[in-house]
């Protein structure tokens, strides 16, 4: 099965060449690895390759082919690109998971203030929503000059991470 993995900005192709139980021969781009790979239901991987002991944890994200990968020192955003996602990509013409002009919060929190209403003209840099989380308030600003076309939440409501908040056009 031909599958590509997007890791931050890199896109790598990956393919299993041989397998004997937990011993795998795997090709990543043009490099071939012999790995002894064990993993469990919590996404914890122990990989031995060239004698090195690698510990990797994959945490699933709400979208099914997205993960956050943790190595010892780094975390990576991972996306699996298979036939299905390639089809979707081709159909929509571009990878566009969220609109650039839709403001969302990277973390859960509570909406403190929405100083704009639908139809308002805003300038790039204007604060359109204030979110509070863990005793700290963050102001989210408009990325463009434009008009508020949709507000998805209301003052006082609690929000999830990556939830759409305000759309500007």
């Amino acid at each position, binding site marked *: *099965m031909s*599958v590509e*993995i997007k*890791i931050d900005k*890199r896109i*790598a192709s*990956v393919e*299993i060449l*041989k*397998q*004997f*139980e937990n011993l*795998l021969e*795997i090709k*990543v781009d043009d*490099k071939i*690895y012999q*790995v002894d*790979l*064990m*993993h*469990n*239901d*919590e*996404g*914890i*991987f122990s*990989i031995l*390759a*060239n004698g090195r002991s*690698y510990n*990797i*944890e*994959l*945490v699933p994200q709400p979208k*099914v*082919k997205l*993960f*956050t*990968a*943790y*190595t010892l*020192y*780094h*975390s*990576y955003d*991972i996306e*699996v690109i*298979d036939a299905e996602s390639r089809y979707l990509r081709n159909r929509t013409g571009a990878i566009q998971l969220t609109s650039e002009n839709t403001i969302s919060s*990277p*973390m*859960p*929190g*509570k909406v403190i203030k929405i100083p704009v209403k639908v139809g308002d003209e805003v300038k790039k840099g204007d604060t359109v929503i204030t979110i*509070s*989380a*863990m*005793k*700290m308030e963050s102001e989210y600003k408009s990325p463009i000059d434009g008009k508020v076309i949709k507000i998805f939440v209301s003052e006082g409501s609690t929000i999830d*991470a990556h939830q759409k908040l305000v759309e500007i056009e």
Partner: protein
Amino acid sequence: MQKFNKILIANRGEIAIRIMRTCREMGISTVAVFSDADRTSMHVRYADEAYHIGPSTSSESYLNADKIIDVAKKTKADAIHPGYGFLSENAGFAQKCADNGIKFIGPSPEVINQMGNKIQARLTMIAAGVPVVPGTTESLKTEKDAVDTIKKIGLPVMVKAAAGGGGKGMRLITNEKDIVSLVRSARSEAKSSFGNDSVYIEKYISSPHHIEFQILGDQHGNFIHLFERECSVQRRHQKMIEETPSPLMTPELRKKMGEYAVEAARTVNYEGAGTIEFLVDNDLNFYFLEMNTRLQVEHPITERITGIDLVKQQILIAEGHPLTITQEKLRQTGHAIECRIYAEDSDNNFMPNPGKIYNITQPLGLGVRSDGYVYEGYEIPIYYDSMISKLIVWAENRNEAIDRMKRALYEYKITGVKTSIKFLERIMDTDDFRSGNYDTNFIEKNKAILLADTKCTPECEDMVIIAAYIEYLDRLNIAQTSKEMYTAQNRWKKYTYQKNFERL
């Protein structure tokens, strides 16, 4: 002398559990209180009894004094331990406890008031002969008054709210033309934050060291200090790392500051555990900054080098026992460092990062203590502080302690939310921290190193790709794998991804 049989802990998170641990060692029952958001928090599960006190927002639960007192009365608790934050420095709450015949574990309402008002605290310290940061000793009356006073003291200065704390109602003035507007905005923020617009002026000390002394006072007029804590590694005016002894300290300075700290406690006839905070400049001049009339987050490093359980001392003092520890017998043994683990994106302006904890690996072994409260599967609420755990190490000397902290941070793995762990590890590697040559400007100064975007090796990156690929293949067969009902019995998988290959 009273013997407590039951203590209500009016707090949550790591400090609630830390207090319950000592209660358990002393054979005292514990009562937890919790808000909507905290039903599944660890402190509820750790306590002997647990009662719901209201909605998630602190003001309607952990700050609801009456509700908490009701639970204490209902459960016949002998005393209330307030922890830190929330009601711990609330004189009104301490008074209500007294009115209801419940011992508040801490100083009297009068002392909390006296030290809570920063102007009054300054006056008290001046009267006791303790050096304070140069500035005014009364509230600014008019804007003209402000301009005149500030000119007399000389720029730069800090305007601070008398009722203040946590950086609210505080402004740095460096330019004469900004005086009026900044005083005005400090006053307005003070009014909205504390309901009191009284502000005062302090000389601004640039890049000082934050050094504090732990003190204990009993009901019988005995006072001791338990040495210093160096708290200069801060971000957004919040401490990140504390250590003791302070690398800046000399035995003479320690003796002198310690004596002042004890004098400060004696002056107000302080009962319980408290902290005297000082600013220290590079010439080792020191100034009283404020007194915290409660346990500090960073108290474990003092416990580690002195061997004394501070919560146990608080309880014994509240029961009326005289201190059995004398100043002469106290020793600082070795070196202790605390790192605060925040759920935050340290690389992105320390933005808080609440969310669900996926996996945790605790650092263990020689010289490592960890005080936390989150567990696997726990969802960190958005309503409270972002500190999820404290990592404390001890070693014979400072270098070894830094090496050990690095090792412990290396072992400490929390996935699902972003944490400050890796940022803290990078701090351990900076020359300035290693050499002990740092002040409150440390993080700003070392920003380039601390925010360096290092990547793992290409081979390591390829391993991540392989792991993601295997996980993906697995999920294609999810229906099959989830048939395996007892996951704990088979957490390590052996699937065949591709059939009929010979052994490699």
